């Protein structure tokens, strides 16, 4: 499903030199597989997810999703591919403030296909336990509620791959478990591959596959050796 080879990414520091962040020789996720990535802050987890989503471009290497190498696509092509194949949940501030919960979910659909399935949008919000808040604006919702809307939105287009970047970072333990359950169940039902970043050991423990990024990433290993 997801195959990464020799992926390298660096950023320019303010002084102008290149700071390598990622060097991932190999990273694969099977269809409908659910896995988590862990790692200390700043080691490049979000950067890796951005690259997989095609939001950023690697310096070199290949990212193939269902056999298609997205590093060869134009920005326009990656936008379209992302909309069709992937769902994304961010750490915080997921929602568009000017739109209600329901509209946030619908918006994801209309960007991707231009065609909107209101029934599915309501159904997803029902599944995350927000039927009573369909018309609420983000600023009137708790962080936990907002994250649940974000999960519903990420699933709205029936993606093949769900990227979740610390979806429970700002949520209390009870909500955290509800969100994780929701993501796992839906991915299982709809055979969606899941790549989730988390800091929480309680969450990570529930997964069969837990990859520490330090292990995948040669840059991190080098830094470790330095330290």
């Amino acid at each position, binding site marked *: 499903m997801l195959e990464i080879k020799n992926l390298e990414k660096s950023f320019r520091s303010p002084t102008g030199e290149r700071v390598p962040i990622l060097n991932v020789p190999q990273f694969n996720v099977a269809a409908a597989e659910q896995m988590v990535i862990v790692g200390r802050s700043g080691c490049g987890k979000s950067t890796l997810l951005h690259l997989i989503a095609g939001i950023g471009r690697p310096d070199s290497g290949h990212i193939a999703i269902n056999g298609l190498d997205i590093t060869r696509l134009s*920005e326009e092509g990656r936008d379209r591919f992302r909309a069709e194949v992937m769902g994304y949940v*961010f750490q915080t501030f997921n929602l568009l403030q000017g739109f209600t919960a329901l509209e946030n979910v619908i918006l994801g659909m209309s960007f991707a296909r231009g065609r909107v399935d209101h029934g599915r949008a309501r159904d997803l919000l029902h599944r995350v336990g927000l039927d009573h808040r369909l018309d609420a604006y983000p600023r009137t919702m708790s962080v936990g509620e907002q994250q649940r809307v974000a999960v519903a939105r990420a699933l709205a287009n029936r993606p093949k791959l769900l990227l979740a970047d610390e979806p429970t970072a700002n949520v209390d333990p009870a909500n955290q478990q509800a969100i994780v359950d929701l993501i796992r169940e839906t991915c299982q039902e709809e055979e969606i591959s899941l790549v989730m970043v988390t800091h929480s050991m309680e969450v990570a423990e529930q997964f069969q596959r837990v990859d520490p990024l330090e292990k995948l990433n040669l840059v991190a290993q080098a830094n470790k050796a330095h330290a």
Partner: protein
Amino acid sequence: MSIWQIAWRSIRQRALASSLTAFSMALGVLLVTAVLLVHGLITKSFTDNSNLGYDLIAGAKGGKLQLVLNTTFYLSQPVENLPYTFYQEFLTKEEQENELALMKPENRGELKDGTYAKNIDFAIPVNLGDTYQHFRIVGTLPKFFEVFKADNEVDPKYHFRHGRNFKVWDDEHGYFEAVIGSIVASETGLKVGDKIEAAHGGDPNDVHSDSPFIVVGILAPSGTPNDRAVFINMEGFYLMSGHAKVEENERPGADVSGSTISRRKPLPIKQREVTAILIRTHDPVFGRSLKNRVNEGNVAQIASPVYVIASLFEFIVKPIQTLLLVLTIMICLVSGISILVSIYNSMNDRKREIAIMRALGARRVTVMGIVLGESIILSVGGGILGWMGAHLLLFSASPFVEAQTGVQIGLFELAPLPRWLEVEIPEVIINNSWIGQFCSIELVIIPGLLLLAVLVGFLPAYTAYRTDVAQALSSSP
């Protein structure tokens, strides 16, 4: 959800800033539209009224402009008078006999065809100088309301809403009959049968209470300055004290035999004067030669009102209007720039939102379209409000404007095309009643606003297009 709906939400999110910028655009467009409409009104009122039905005005030597303003618009200070005998030069012997029928033949002097009587359609004398309240009084002959034709050349130009035209002599009222314009009637409440006492020379303390006139007719609105005038029989005018040219000891009506004023005799010819003569000639060539002949003499001058009005318009009214238009267009540009600043300032706060949209699959052009959409909604929305505001404003002022200029304004009457453009458009289109009605300079407003919106929206939209999604997502809001 369409781009427009998304753009509208984003506008609503910044409701205060958005409404302020839209409001400034509304004001700008309101001013532009108002200037265009007023421009159209003034042009219309000038051109309508310069289609006077006559082509020349004869008056005493002096300023042509003053003569024309006085005679056609009843504006400006009264001018000097001409001797009645000069007026007679425009009449045939027969016409003179008719007009002086009430005078004893021995008092008329010897009548012969006037020097200029050939090739003249009509010549109408007018006497100006008195007022009734703030309305001008025009002493003239009944033919004033008979010879002018409507645009179709058949119907009369002036209609009576009530009563009838005044007569030179009426068995009941004698010489003292009057006809009033529609605005005079509505403002003063005068009705048929009421009395009018003229103020001599416009002086309210010098009222001709010795010779009141009786209103016998009220004109239907004609959209001309005549709506604001009081017309009285010239014979009666002459008999009011102070109107005879004083040359000899002879008092007007000194040989009165009856007991009432109306029995007095007409004023002798040598004591008569006229302020101006409205003339229509058979053809312009003769008009020009007539003008030259009279102007070379030292008695009178002849002016072409259409020419005088047009040059007044060209040299005074137009530059002012152009200046106003330029100023108001600049106001619109400033409003456009304020929209630019408002949207551009918001771009920094919106990087995150744009990144989220992009992560949701929105294309770069979609994001750009949303920002452009905001600019268009603000400019065009504000502009349409301003446009409607201008029309409402002018419409609510229309009774006043109509009273002042005689031009009527409909709520959605559009400003006309400028002349130079109008001549470019085939006549079939202009004269087609409903297409022609929409041939308006105002049609430029909406495309103009769209262009402005795209211009000012482009910079922020391009910023949105260029947003680095990865960076915007990794920096916390």
